[in-house]
């Protein structure tokens, strides 16, 4: 039997989740969504610039184009996941009370999901609902 030089149990080592219980997922997902944010940034800025200043019918025509709707949807999903992870780091840095910290982290998750759900619903409604009919 091999000797252990660590107080960590073999099971804990095998799981590799560490003190946070979540392993490196938080860090890794933050980086993955940073990459997807970066890739989606240019098309997002172009779509917003194209839509800006146009009347409703024209704005709907642009956003309801499948390519625009898909890019906007991916962007919204990517940024809301990224900002949830990022804000959790900020909360964990500055909110020290245990109860307040847990409450803030939960509120952060709710906010990110609410923004994501509202934006996604809006994009899909425009994409499915109006478009050529208008």
């Amino acid at each position, binding site marked *: 039997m091999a000797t252990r030089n660590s107080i960590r149990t073999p099971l804990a080592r095998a799981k590799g989740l560490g003190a946070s219980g979540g392993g490196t997922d938080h860090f890794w997902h933050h*980086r993955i969504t*940073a990459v997807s*944010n*970066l890739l989606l*940034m240019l098309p997002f*800025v172009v779509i917003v*610039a194209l839509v*800006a*200043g146009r*009347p*409703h*019918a024209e*704005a*709907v025509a642009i*956003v309801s184009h499948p390519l625009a709707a898909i890019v*906007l949807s991916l962007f*919204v999903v990517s*940024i*809301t996941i990224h*900002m949830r992870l*990022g*804000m959790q780091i*900020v909360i964990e840095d500055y909110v020290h009370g245990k109860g307040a910290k847990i409450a803030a982290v939960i509120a952060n998750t709710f906010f990110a999901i609410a*923004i994501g759900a*509202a*934006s996604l*619903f*809006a*994009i899909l*409604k*425009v994409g499915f*609902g109006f478009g050529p009919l208008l």
Partner: protein
Amino acid sequence: MASAESARAEAKRPLSPHLQIYRWTWTMAMSIFHRATAIVLYVGTVFLAFWLVSLASGAEAYASAAWFFGSPVGYLLLFAYTWALMHHMLGGVRHFVWDFGRGFEPSQRFLLAKLTLAGSIGLTLVIWIVALIAR
């Protein structure tokens, strides 16, 4: 008397050195900018959702949203948001460079920090000039 003075001096001594203690450096400033722009972008997603939901709610709702974003306050908000977006994006690229174990030498760190600020201002101006010309 002497002990009272020393006690007062002791009380004034900063117990936990924070921002006001340190000499500002480019890397420190850009690190703070990175987190500050992150928080601005976080709050600003409310406006993104507001814009998209108004678009999905019909012509009347969209007209009021368009009026807001087309107002001087709206333009200022959008301009500031563009800069925050570009700055946080370039700050993220800087972090990618560091993630690959590069750019840690003092001269490289300061160059990256300055490029982040200059690049974000440059990109913001390019986006707005192109968007306004293409209008």
